[in-house]
């Protein structure tokens, strides 16, 4: 088993399948009266969040608590980081406090990789800049597998702002490891073709959403990151929604069994129409529930044994 989870490419097909299988068992805990397992009793998990996040932080916190680990939440606001402490000094502080795992979100791409060299415990990347978000990719894969029964041979369209999306990067890596075919769809300004092909040879690229939709099993909509949109990647929000937003007529072009995913938070009416987001094809709420199970599996597999 791996020691850190920093990238969707860190896991090979066997490890990824083990994580998904473990998550299936963890999911049964959610339906029980006592939603707790003693597996990580006495272990300490630190949530180190330098960026705002609700669902990921709460999801990791719930996962660690369901496994009986002690959870320490650290957000940059109102902490010594606001006084100018460096990431390394913060890491050494956590180390001194005996953190067994550090779950880190950071605006700088690569920060978790640096952190992994400074602490003895496991590091889990919960999103770094525009780089990676591996547990999101795992929960997306888990959701696809539970809805469609398999991953190998699936055709997944990842639609939208691929350039800035850590979710897209991790998904491309993980899904190609697991044998799914990925096609990136979006305006040319937001699709880094070279990077995509370096990540996964054989990846598809298209600038025409309507042409891709009839041939996919999964369509994954990415959030338009308005905070990163100062550089005019597309002429206007309305034009983006017209060309790349998933509305009801577009949803009808999908095959009967296809599902619609979104990592959240959504801009309703921008990349996804409200009717689509609330339709039975949408797995958006399921993805959140699956996130806890998958993160439980990751924490258990990283911390459960003596493999530190």
């Amino acid at each position: 088993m791996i020691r850190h989870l920093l990238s969707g490419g860190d896991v090979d097909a066997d490890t990824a399948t083990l994580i998904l299988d473990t998550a299936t068992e963890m999911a049964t805990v959610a339906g029980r009266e006592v939603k707790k397992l003693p597996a990580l009793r006495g272990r300490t998990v630190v949530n180190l969040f330098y960026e705002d996040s609700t669902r990921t932080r709460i999801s990791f916190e719930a996962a660690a608590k369901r496994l009986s680990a002690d959870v320490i939440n650290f957000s940059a606001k109102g902490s010594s980081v606001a006084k100018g402490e460096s990431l390394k000094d913060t890491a050494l502080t956590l180390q001194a406090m005996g953190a067994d795992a550090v779950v880190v979100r950071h605006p700088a791409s690569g920060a978790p990789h640096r952190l992994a060299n400074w602490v003895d415990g496991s590091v889990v990347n919960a999103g770094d800049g525009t780089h990676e978000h591996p547990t999101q990719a795992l929960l997306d894969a888990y959701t696809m597998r539970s809805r469609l029964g398999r991953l190998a041979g699936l055709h997944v369209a990842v639609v939208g702002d691929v350039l800035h999306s850590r979710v897209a990067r991790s998904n491309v890596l993980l899904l190609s490891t697991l044998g799914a075919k990925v096609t990136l769809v979006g305006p040319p300004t937001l699709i880094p073709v070279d990077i995509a092909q370096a990540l996964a040879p054989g990846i598809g690229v298209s600038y025409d959403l309507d042409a891709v939709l009839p041939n996919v099993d999964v369509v994954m909509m990415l959030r338009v990151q308005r905070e990163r949109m100062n550089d005019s990647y597309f002429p206007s929000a309305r034009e983006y929604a017209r060309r790349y937003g998933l509305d009801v007529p577009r949803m009808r072009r999908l095959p009967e069994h296809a599902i619609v995913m979104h990592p959240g938070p959504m801009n309703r009416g921008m990349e996804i129409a409200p009717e689509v987001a609330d339709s039975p094809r949408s797995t958006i709420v399921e993805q959140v529930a699956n996130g806890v199970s998958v993160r439980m599996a990751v924490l258990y597999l990283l911390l459960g044994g003596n493999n530190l």
Partner: protein
Amino acid sequence: MAYPPAAPASPPRQPSVKVILAAADVSRVVDRIAHQILEKTQGAADTVLLGIPTRGVPLAKRLADRISTFEDVAVGVGVLDITLYRDDLRRHATRAVGPTQLPAGGIDGKRIVLVDDVLFSGRTVRAALDALSDVGRPACVQLAVLVDRGHRQLPIRADYVGKNIPTALAENVKVTLVETDGSDEVRLYGGQL
């Protein structure tokens, strides 16, 4: 300071294998336990058999099978995975978690018979009791094992024992079943010839 070197092992001991129960014995023992369960549970009313992986699971199924043949009652059968409740999780590489399957009626208020192949230290049963209390509240819990080899480390005893085998700690009891290993047999490894 280092330990003094171990004395050279004088004549190399022959590893011995002794068959304790052959296939026919195993099936007779299972039949007897099934009868005992029927006797002690007033005809297996409200009784659920939960197998502890790996070999407790097929054993529980066989017992349920025999019970329904003898008395024409259907007993619930399930699987109780105890991986996450073990007390030695941190002494080994991470173990894979298996499924826990409870029968449709659940286990609340039922009489539970835990089924395992070998009773040794009692730690597996301790973990099973913890796991059980997290999935429901049975009326009572009993324990059925194919083999009791002694050397308990916890205050636990079985209600139904297929065969008591007095063993030395260094010896090894190995149960094989058709469902998991291709043949029914109980063997004792490393005993004196």
